[in-house]
């Protein structure tokens, strides 16, 4: 361990009017304005849709959500709290307390879905499955090892990989159902989680890059090697996890494209170049549309036909037009 972390004095009162890093307040404001609870989502409207799924599809869905619950549990109880010790500012500490709480809200949300849609027995079966599924336990172990090791930079790497990569083998399924007009309220709830995870990955990745910039070139290279090694190890395990869940329904290849796409984004949150070439990151357009309506519309001027553009005269807008 060559990186030392400044431990903050915990007797100082936090002053939000004296910031060392504007990003702390920006992200705090973003996270607090994004706050939500599962009770706000009308999950019970999905009951008729749930009943159209085959028993096999229902079992897959419960298992996927149980796997996501496990990751959110780790992040809420360990992943975000361990970052508090490494914080560079008191405001950063406060942001991690928000992240930890929202991860607990996410974990709690899956239980809301279960109590609305599923039988207790099926859910109990899935929780038992989660303890016995080897790839699920392996990924938890790979992450927890980094959280418990004395390397602040690798703690952040593991955290960003969890937030920005490991969730997506699970997020794939509700997006798949939504693209078939199934479980659409559940998908709305999952989209709120996906939005939160983007901010978490971005912020933790940003703080990682600040700390990395202060390290020696040798240390920077070593961290990069560790990070890519961990990504590859997690990826290999994630493929096994996806196969254990999705092979029976023939979805694994689609899930893998989604994994490649999100692995690249996780690396980019850390400031690293994408690992997977664009030839293997083409996410099924219906999944991308369920995630982000309009994102796959190939009519940005440079890449599309351009035919959808009607370019008006450059009429000057008034200043008040910008007063959002």
């Amino acid at each position, binding site marked *: 361990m060559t990186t030392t972390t400044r431990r903050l004095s915990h007797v100082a009162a936090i002053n939000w009017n004296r910031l060392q*890093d*504007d*990003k702390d307040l*920006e992200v705090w404001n*973003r996270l607090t*304005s*994004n706050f939500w609870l599962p009770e706000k989502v009308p999950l019970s409207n999905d009951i008729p849709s749930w009943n159209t799924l085959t028993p096999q599809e229902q079992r897959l869905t419960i298992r996927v959500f149980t796997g996501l619950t496990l990751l959110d549990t780790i992040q809420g109880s360990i992943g975000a709290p361990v970052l508090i010790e490494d914080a560079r500012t008191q405001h950063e500490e406060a942001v991690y307390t928000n992240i930890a709480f929202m991860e607990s809200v996410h974990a709690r949300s899956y239980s809301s879905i279960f109590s609305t849609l599923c039988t207790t027995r099926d859910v109990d079966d899935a929780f038992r499955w989660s303890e016995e599924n080897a790839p699920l336990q392996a990924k938890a172990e790979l992450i927890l090892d980094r959280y418990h090791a004395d390397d602040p930079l690798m703690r952040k790497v593991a955290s960003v990989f969890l937030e920005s990569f490991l969730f997506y083998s699970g997020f794939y399924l509700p997006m798949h159902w939504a693209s078939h007009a199934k479980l659409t309220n559940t998908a709305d709830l999952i*989209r709120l989680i*996906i*939005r939160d*995870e*983007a*901010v978490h990955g*971005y912020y933790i990745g*940003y703080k990682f*890059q600040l700390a990395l910039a202060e390290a020696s070139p040798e240390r920077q290279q070593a961290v990069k090697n560790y990070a890519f090694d961990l990504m590859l190890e997690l990826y290999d395990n994630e493929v096994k996890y996806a196969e254990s869940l999705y092979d029976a329904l023939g979805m694994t290849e689609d899930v893998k494209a989604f994994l490649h796409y999100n692995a*690249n*984004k996780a690396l*980019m*949150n850390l*400031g690293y170049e*994408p690992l997977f070439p*664009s030839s293997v990151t083409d996410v099924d357009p219906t999944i*991308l549309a369920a*995630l*982000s*309506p*309009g*994102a796959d519309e190939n009519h*940005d*001027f*440079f*890449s599309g*036909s*351009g035919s959808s*553009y009607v*370019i*008006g*005269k*450059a*009429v*000057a*807008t008034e*200043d008040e*037009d*910008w007063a*959002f």
Partner: protein
Amino acid sequence: MSQAATLPTPGSAGVGLVYFSTRSGNTHRFMQALGLPASRIPLSRDASGLVVDSPFVLVTPTYGGGGVKGAVPGPVIRFLNDKQNRQRLRGVIAAGNTNFGAGYCLAGRIIAEKCHVPLLHRFELFGTPDDVATVYQGVTKCWIPHA
């Protein structure tokens, strides 16, 4: 590129690039990869504002939690509040994250609509090599950027 003919005719000096990036630097990094001359909108409210004297394309990240409010970064709003800057805007390129759903690259769509310019390209975080290539080709083939 065949669409070039439909674009507003740039001034004789060509079209430059203007961008905004916060301390996290994703958009700055995209511009570095692009390797074309570009002016950066200052981050600080105190800094004297950037005024552009020739046509340009704007590259901006998207802020906020997916809604319209706050999607366009404050410094970009202040920059476009300058009538001279607004009149010289020829197109917008936006960065974002599909995790924000319908809010993906919303800043680009808002600016395109308000200023009646095309949304030229969207990319995530600091863009993939494909994004860089697309924008490089688009900007250099459609217009000749200048410093």
